[in-house]
């Protein structure tokens, strides 16, 4: 099996558009569910996990959008395949470490994905481009309702859906959005924003969720509390906060252009210079520079180019995607060279940034 032939092509995945796409890359809602009479995956014996996996998978695949879905056991995937799925945000890093007795089901349009026997028996997610947390909630709610008639969920009136970790108890919901916030980072306001968002009981994390770095100025904002509030209240609250963050990011970009245009153009120009001309570049540096390149596209400095281009480059320059293009594992140094070659050739068609003349030789103010 070649996982790349099954998944959508990177350019198609990157080309999906949604509301407020300039700043909100994607929206996701996931629900944690468990079976009433089986121990949680972390405590169940392997034989039980294997049985449970089959039982859940077969039932998941009877629900409409999953009828001809892609499904696999984790033991059938190579390390590289698993990493590729992590890079596409279909499975968690934790799930990628699993073997027989765990698996996944992914709908044809890649909008719905179910991880089976991760931390909970079921972790189902709806993933949509742009700011669509409400639609993602509706989609996963509908799927969950359809599935519940086939599976006997662990539920108790007082505590709601029972989960392996008490942090997910009740609704089992995690609503999140992936945000691109270069303006807030460049204007050094990001820490203030993170603190304010934390105070509201929401978490701000890096690209791959818990415990990961915010590479490429991409931040994930999500709810933390799952008990004592309805799903729609949680979704609505997060949506409000997201709209405010979008506002702040737009303001920050506006102010930067007004007061520190040279600094912004300098960052973007240098990012373009390195991306288009380097001969060895790490994945981390690539992500950070692609973020600035994307900002340049947002600011119309690269006419004729769309943000989807940076999103595609973002996907294909990540380690597993890169190694898949050469059908096999490569050392880090070889990867860095390959990545640089790829970027140089793709950026051949992109002209230098058309920076407007700011009319000043020196920056005003400090």
């Amino acid at each position, binding site marked *: 099996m070649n996982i790349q032939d099954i998944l959508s092509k990177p350019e198609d995945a990157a080309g999906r558009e949604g509301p407020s796409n300039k700043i909100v890359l994607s929206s996701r809602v996931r629900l944690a569910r*468990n079976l*009433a*009479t*089986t*121990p*949680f995956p*972390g*405590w169940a014996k392997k034989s039980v996990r294997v049985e449970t996996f089959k039982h859940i998978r077969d039932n998941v695949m009877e629900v409409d959008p999953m009828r001809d879905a892609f499904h696999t056991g984790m033991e059938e995937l190579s390390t590289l395949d698993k990493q590729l799925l992590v890079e596409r945000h279909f499975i968690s890093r934790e799930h990628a470490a699993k073997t027989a007795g765990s698996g996944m089901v992914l709908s044809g349009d890649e909008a719905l994905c179910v991880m089976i026997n991760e*931390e909970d028996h079921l972790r189902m997610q709806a993933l949509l481009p742009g700011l669509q947390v409400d639609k993602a909630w509706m989609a996963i*709610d509908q799927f*969950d*309702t359809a599935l*519940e*008639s086939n599976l006997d*969920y*662990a*539920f*108790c*009136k*007082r*505590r*709601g*859906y*029972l989960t*392996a*970790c*008490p*942090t997910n*108890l*009740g*609704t089992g*919901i995690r609503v999140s959005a992936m945000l691109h916030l270069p303006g807030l980072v460049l204007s050094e306001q990001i820490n203030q924003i*993170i603190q304010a968002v*934390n105070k509201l*009981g929401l*978490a*701000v*994390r*890096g690209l791959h969720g*818990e*415990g*990961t*770095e*915010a590479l490429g100025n991409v931040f994930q904002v999500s709810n*933390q*509390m*799952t*008990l*004592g*509030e*309805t*799903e729609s209240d949680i979704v609505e609250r997060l949506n409000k906060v997201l709209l405010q963050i979008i506002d702040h990011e737009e303001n920050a970009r506006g102010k930067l252009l007004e007061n520190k245009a040279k600094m912004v153009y300098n960052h973007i120009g240098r990012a373009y210079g390195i991306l288009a001309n380097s001969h060895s570049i790490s994945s981390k540096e690539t992500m950070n520079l692609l973020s600035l390149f994307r900002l340049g596209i947002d600011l119309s400095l690269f006419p004729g180019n769309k943000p989807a281009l940076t999103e595609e480059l973002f996907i294909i320059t990540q380690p597993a995607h890169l190694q898949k293009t050469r059908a096999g594992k490569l050392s880090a140094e070889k990867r860095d060279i390959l990545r640089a070659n790829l970027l140089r050739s793709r950026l051949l068609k992109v002209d230098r940034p058309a920076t407007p003349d700011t009319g000043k030789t020196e920056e005003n103010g400090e």
Partner: protein
Amino acid sequence: MLCDICKEKEATVHLTQMVEGKTKKIDLCESCSKAKGVDDPTGFSLADMLLGLGASQEMEESGSTTGKCPKCGFSQTDFKKTGRLGCPDCYDHFTEGVESLLKSMHKGTRHVGKAPAVWQQTKVYGDRLHSLQSKLDKAVAKEDYEKAAQLRDEISRVKSEYSESTIS
């Protein structure tokens, strides 16, 4: 001082944070702090780890919930180690510890969201009964016995309606 996570290596990273007005402290060794992403302040969610660990300590201190879950054999020590429970029944077995833990991590301790369809009926029934009962209590307190009698009849009617609907 040993690391709170692996309990093996010497703790070199010490964190303190206010969570819900309580000071929570955590001591980690270098490798656990890296594994938890503590060395990278932007991607690290203090609250998650603090809640998990602090809470399991609280659970142990509460003391009364001892022994293993009769359903799956999961013990408190296992919970402390992993921060996760063994099976859905563990929630009933470790009730007290879980309750204090939930208070510190969530907005409330009662579920108010979605319920499977089979439960929704029960919920509607429960809510209706609950509201009637509180009306009855108020009527009795006000010594409005006529109203109280009406409400009592209403309650028994709801109860019999429900038992009929669940039998059929």
